[in-house]
């Protein structure tokens, strides 16, 4: 039987990898890819806590499904923003999207 800690550490590692992507990639689309990884790691935790807690309490799974919806919304809007910026400024480099500086 796999102990709970394995799942949690696995999720933490995946989260950190995603975080690295978010912090370090130049391309805005790649940043969103990193965000996806982070969201997934959260979902692993939710599912693991569901399984290792009281199975008849569906909160973990329900939350995970809500996270799916949130992830979908995030991707839809995030990519739309990237495309919008690309069409106006012809760039997808996050560093160059700094109009909101002030």
């Amino acid at each position, binding site marked *: 039987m796999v102990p709970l800690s394995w799942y949690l550490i696995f999720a933490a590692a995946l989260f950190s990898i995603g975080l690295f992507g978010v912090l370090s990639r130049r391309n805005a689309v790649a940043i969103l890819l990193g965000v996806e990884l982070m969201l997934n790691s959260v979902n692993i935790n939710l599912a693991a806590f569901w399984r290792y807690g009281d199975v008849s309490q569906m909160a973990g799974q329900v939350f995970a*499904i809500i996270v*799916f919806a949130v992830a*979908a919304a995030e*991707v*839809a809007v995030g990519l739309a923003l990237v495309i919008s910026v690309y069409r106006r400024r012809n760039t997808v480099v996050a560093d160059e999207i700094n109009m909101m500086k002030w």
Partner: protein
Amino acid sequence: MSPWIYIGLFFIVGLIIPVGAIGFAWFLGPRKSNPIKRTTYECGIETVGDSWVQFKAQYYIFALVFLVFDVETVFLFPWAVRLGQLGLFAVVEGIIFILILLAGLVYTWRKGMLEWA
């Protein structure tokens, strides 16, 4: 034993068969490649420019609408499974859910985003 083992086996076998077939063909077939053979085939004449053409935004729109509906339908599956036991109230909930969903479709439609051209 978990039924997922069998699903895993199907994945493995499902990969082994095509890999085997392609590998077998690769093993038996001749390998006399040259640059002419490896040129891109379009419609017979030399290809012009990059293959990475600019796509129209409509592809993204359709994928977007699909994504939203896909996720929403996923929500509906547990609903449908329990529908028989839960009576009219659950039905109304689901119908509200679907109507909200269709409102998004109508918006996109009215905005003219579902037009291809």
